[in-house]
């Protein structure tokens, strides 16, 4: 049974790079270009095992998305990882405070991805 991951990033390059990486690891991937789109998918009954989101996005940004996801009844416990850059220390802490599980630092290698997901999803 493949785990499903929702990837939220406004950059198509970043999205498809993550998608390729994740699919190689046997995950099923759905994508959204911003928080609003991601939230709409979740509200529509899509229940991923993990949400992977960028922070800076036009429209609804990653931090708002985290807050909104935690408000949704079925998503109190879903692991959320934020994609950050080296310099976004403050954003990471903010994300954690708002309910993110952890973060990844861009550029994200396949190894980083697997190691990080192993920490938040069992059996991967």
């Amino acid at each position: 049974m493949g785990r499903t991951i929702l990837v939220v990033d406004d950059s198509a390059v970043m999205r498809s790079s993550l998608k390729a990486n994740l699919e190689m690891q046997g995950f099923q991937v759905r994508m959204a270009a911003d928080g609003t789109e991601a939230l709409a998918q979740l509200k529509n009954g899509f229940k991923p095992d993990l949400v992977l989101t960028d922070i800076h996005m036009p429209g609804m940004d990653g931090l708002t998305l985290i807050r909104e996801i935690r408000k949704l009844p079925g998503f109190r416990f879903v692991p959320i990882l934020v994609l950050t850059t080296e310099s976004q220390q403050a954003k990471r802490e903010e994300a954690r405070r708002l309910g993110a599980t952890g973060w990844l630092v861009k550029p994200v290698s396949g190894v980083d991805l697997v190691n990080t997901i192993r920490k938040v999803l069992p059996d991967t």
Partner: protein
Amino acid sequence: MSTLVEQFVVEARELLQGISEQILALEARPEDSEALHELFRLVHTLKGNSGLVEAPAMTRVLHVAEDLIGAVRDGRQPFTQELADALLEALDFVALLVDELEQEGTVQAAHNHEATRHIQRLQALGDGAAPEASPPASAAAADDATPITLEALPEEARAVARERLQEGSPLHWIVYEPEEDCFFKGEDPFLLARQTPGVCWGRFSPREPWPALDAMDPYRCVLRFELLSEAPRAALEEHFSYVADQVCLQPVQASRPDADPVDPPAPVAIPDEAVQQILEAQQAVLQGPVDEGFDGRVQAVKAALEGLLKALGWESARDALEAALEASRQTRSPEPLRQWIAQTFGRHAEPTPDAGDTASETTPERQSNATSEAPRLPEARPRSSSTLRVSQERIDALMSLVGELVVAKNGLAYLAGKVQRDYELPELSREIKMHFAALHRIAEELQDAVMQVRMLPFAHVFQRFPRLVRDLARRLGKEVRLEIIGEETEADKHLIESLADPLIHLIRNSLDHGIEPPEERRARGKPAAGLLRIRTRQEGDRIWIEVSDDGRGIDPERIKRKAYEKGLVDEAALERMGPAEALQLLFRPGFSTASNVSDISGRGVGLDVVKRTVEQLGGSVRLESEPGKGTRFILSLPLSMMVTQVLVVEVQGQLYGLPVDAVVETVRVAPEAIQRIQHQDTLVLRNQVIPVESLQYRLNDCKPSHKAADTLSVVIVQQETSRVGLLVDDFRETLDVVLKPLPGVLAGLSLYAGSALLGDGTVLMILNLKTLLEPCRSNFGSEASSSVTT
């Protein structure tokens, strides 16, 4: 080029465009916080993406740019003109790297110097706004680095710990007390504990006594985890990085307090970026030529690398470095050292576990691995399901296939004719024609569909203009307001792209010659800032583009004088010429109104090139101007130009194609209908006198051999404002052809617009009516089509 790089390039260009737009917006309104946030976001995204491709110079510049913009956003730094200039230039540099990435697939290390220049400039501007430095990862855990002795461990753990210590493994004691509300952050502490690298013992216990079950909140985490791990400290810190504040990490010390600490002193944390910069510098040195200075240089590189290893605490890799240096010296090639760097530091400046056996593996091919780390990606996923990004090559391939289909389809029409003519099988011929009709319809729809795909909005080229206008205006000391209307108008990609240069030329022309300096404008009672307006609209199957300004306009008398001085027109022509006509002289080759050639529009390219380009696209350009009020260029172009419909005509057994758009009608007339008036054959058709030219004469320059035919075949064509009758031996069917411009030498034979391949494989020459009829128009001006009263 890998798909990833392709995608990166496409997206990087979009991002760069957006970035430059936001900078320009901020220049106009520095307080626009929305633009500022957007700018930050775009630069940030681009920087993130650049990490996916092999372009460290790009990432470095963007990193500094991001910091600077971040400082402005946080109010630590004002947005100044100087800052805008520096940013725009740095981004031009980035755009250059993107181009290189597209062409070469990589970015040359040679750009590092230039990158550093931009970085220094940006950093100088951002002085005082220290970048948001991330504290070293170990900072949080630094306090609890005091060792714990074996005795202090719980009894159950002690035996395991003792055993491991005897084996010489470094050992850490970890106490992890998750936050009570951690489940609501998606955490699973038990999982994290289980996944701890190098864990050799572990247990959990409640931090408080368990309540009665009916009072229990299962979602409040009250567990404590205790672990022993033999993984390196850095790996443990990394593993618990999200919960660093909830974890206590202590090295385990053997019982005897005087014994050497088991754990070697933790190496000083060196930022990746510093490592990268050192490595880049070494790579740059290694790029130098292999000359007498080579030995000295590799020695210096080796010394620098040695220092780096020491600082990183990777001294075990020194032997391999020594071997690489030796190999480099002996082979007099920097390759072994480069290999060593690539293998030891890899992509993220981390040592590979077995950096030791480098010397035995120094094959040059290995180096290329560094760039192929990124996996091949599947098709680009669009932002939403309604758009799909497809490379130009694919569309072009599809387009040329459609073209071939159209031509192949015409083969059926030919076949139908042949069946009818040579085999007299009308039934079969009719059937083929039916199939032809069906195919024709499908081909047409397919063609339309592909055309739709190729449609681009004008915004595609217009988006560069604000920056262009800004830069030009600043250089010329003018104030210009750019107004763009109708950028959403769409046209064929080829057309849009081909128009970029002519439009840029017109913009330059307006700024250079049209719009006056602010003082002059004020003196004339105009607003100080000139208005440059670019406007497009679609009308039927034509696109109209206007480039207008409210500048000083053009004096037709001056143009006439100039043209006369340059010998472009004779006195008589000058006399007859009206003001509107005089303005069109500007499009003549060799005409330039600027008294001295400026570096803006006087680059040896005149308006004649604009006209030529537009005409090559099947369009026309006109100029209107009112002295003192302004100038307006009006371009009119066909919406698409893929397949040309031609009327096939026969002259002396040869077939030629005439573009159908020029053909008004075909008539068969009695020989007597053609009369000679003033050395010109003419035909009176529906009360219009139409000059008649023999195509045979035009083509072969020999007298027409009027056969004693009962009727003559005349094709009436429209050439600009006048109509001309072309006498041919016969006309045939109309065909859709893909017009191919003539190659090489033949291109000089401008009687032909190009050639097309027919269904039976023969080549049809398509006539260029404009050049074909050039002489007869000058002889017999547009007044030829005046009405006759009979």
